[in-house]
């Protein structure tokens, strides 16, 4: 079992808002600040577009960690979208914690378009945390694992 865990490459889904965090990821790229290849980004217009079902679905399909990145509170391109996202995610994460699911598997980070370094740092740290947690067993659908 130990051997298997070492080989396990965790899968991380990162939802990034188009205006700040996706641009921050672009800046990380153009600054050549690397982060693990198992982080895959999905572009959404705003952090408030992210439905809790997207996050649960990602876990179901085998993601080991899901992170949501948006503009810093107060800087939302749509003025207040990230404030709603913040409440929704707080409640969702708290519920997952209540159900006994490792809270470290979910995360929200505010990354501005100027914070390429932060984006890379956040992704490296998150990937490390998920690596340490190992495979997502509590929120996966075995049928979705090939």
């Amino acid at each position, binding site marked *: 079992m130990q051997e298997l865990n070492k080989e396990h490459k965790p*899968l991380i*889904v990162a939802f990034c808002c*188009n205006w700040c965090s*996706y*641009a921050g*990821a*672009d800046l*990380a*790229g*153009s600054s*050549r*600040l*690397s*982060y693990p*290849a198992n982080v*895959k*980004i*999905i*572009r*959404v*217009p*705003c952090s*408030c*577009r*992210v*439905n*809790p*079902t*997207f996050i649960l*679905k*990602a876990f179901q*399909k*085998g*993601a080991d960690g899901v992170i949501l990145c948006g503009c810093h509170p*107060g*800087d*939302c*391109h*749509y*003025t*207040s*979208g990230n404030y*709603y996202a913040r409440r*929704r995610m707080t409640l969702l994460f708290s519920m997952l914690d209540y159900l006994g699911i490792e809270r470290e598997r979910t995360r929200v980070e505010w990354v501005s378009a100027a914070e390429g370094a932060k984006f*890379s740092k956040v992704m490296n740290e998150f990937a490390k945390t998920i690596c340490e947690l190992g495979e997502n067993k509590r929120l996966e659908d075995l049928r*979705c694992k*090939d």
Partner: protein
Amino acid sequence: MQRIGVFVCWCGSNISATVDVEKVSAVLALEPNVVISQNYQYMCSENGQALIRNSIKEHNLTGVVVCSCSPRMHEATFRRACESAGLNPYMLEVANIREQVSWIHKDIEEATEKAIILGRTAIAKLRLNTPLTAGESPVIKRALVIGGGIAGIQSALDIAEAGYEVDIVEKSPTIGGNMAKLDKTFPTLDCAACILTPKMVDCAQNEKIDILTFSEIESVKGFVGNFKVGIRKKARFVNEKLCTGCGVCTQKCPSKRGLNDFNMNLNTRPAIYIPFAQAIPNVAIIDPEQCLKLKNGKCGLCAMQCPTKAIDYTQQDEIVEREYGAIVVATGYKPISLENFNEYGYSTYKDVVTSLEFERIMNAAGPTSGHLERPSDHKQPKVITFIQCVGSRDTSGCGKPYCSKICCMYTAKHAMLVREKYPDTQVNIFYIDVRTPGKNYDEFYRRAVEQYGVNYIKGMVGKVYKEGDNLVVQGSDLINNEQLLIKSDMVVLAAAIEPDPSVRKIATLLTTSIDTNNFLTEAHAKLKPVESPTAGIFLSGVCQGPKDIPETVSQASACAAKVIGLLAKDKLKCNASTAGADEMLCTGCSLCENVCPYGAITYIDKEFRLGGGRTEVRRVASVNPAVCQGCGACTVTCPSGAMDLKGFSTKQIMAEVDAICKN
């Protein structure tokens, strides 16, 4: 059935050095619905775009996936290419294999695998794309300029010149701003009033320009082309329409103790006053803190004296609502407070003044009528010491980390003016660096040194203290490596400048971003210096960063050009990615309406056929596509999933999640 074309870009070697582009295009060719998959050196080049266009026609493509740089870079380019080949521009998806792959991963195998997954994800999303068309919204042909300093005045004049109506909203009782307080201007030494006041008069006389002084922005709604702004006209207790500015009231007013803020509080003014002789509008105003009538009901002299019965002690604040197509922010600056700089003794010694106070002392219309006198005993100073960089370039937390840009030049100006008018006065200037980039600027500074004999000392002042009647300035001379103790009659501090504090509230109302120093952020530091990141909001003058007058005026005109360009359009293309409710699912619960930041959602009662000739009237959500900006807040609030966002639909995002996770 979709027919998808995949185009993998090498970006020269930017992508191809770490991603096996041949393999990516070969693997993606096997994906369902993909009918052609190619790679090319530069997809964004004319040849690359031609490849896309030709493939669309040749293979009857219904959708295009480009694996290239970030969509933020070339999505628009490729959309245009699709459109010119007759494909709906929204039938395009970009897989970002440069910023997210080749530039951050070194291992070719790993990078290639990730590029393939991102390509598959884009294909998965594209399968569910539908053609979108952007709506149009009309443009209100009127601009708002917030701030009536030289920046706002110039922007307003230029916009009006092009034939559009402009309102200037100024928080103080007159337009003119800081420039109206200046004596002379560098590098030509012409008098500030002589060049500014004609422009102020032009504003007042231009029928396209409406000036709202003593007014503040209260609320902002809407979006580019369609802003609705609430403006608070504060009570000035004088009917602007009736007052002729004759000034009789100001002479009769018995309460004369109010500090004259136009003269930097160096002297006093009556409770009813006109800020300065050339004020626009030339209308009196009552300071309610000072007015005896307003404070305790006893007086009323001004009302008795007023020949036009313009005084109105009952006047109240008034809110006016106006609509604009574009908004210019020109809120300007103020000198920083010097409370953190006790070493210079500003709050202890009367004869330590700021440069802006010195401007008023030197100004013929100022408190000393232009005679150089020091404030403590009104004696003419024989030795004046200027200290530059007071609070500028300060990372210790006491001041501002940036260079205030204008101080080197105005200090040289002050030194020259003093030496010109009072040749027997000794003038010392402590400087860290003298920064003079600008046409004829260095020549100006050298003239101060060479022709006017100003004593420039490379070094900084550590303390200012009093000895008898005089001040002693203790500082270092780094060139001679000695410490100096200079007896001075007067000390002038070149205080750093900071954005006017009102800008924070305004930035919040306008939802535009602001940096750590409270300067408004431009959309692009080099290529979009006068646009804010929020569409329809433009930046003029020091609110965006420290600037001198020539630079402010050029930026103000640039800003006006952008506004004119916007107002010249009759309609604006709206965002195509808008929300919409599935009326069969919508329950009319109003949750989405509550979270929409744009007020784009309303509810209508709609009749639905139930079959068998029966009908039912139901309340359903209706999205105004001209107003919807496509954030998606409503989609998550909707429990029934009736609300969805075009271009980022639930199905599309779920398909992306699937595509990423199944690998």
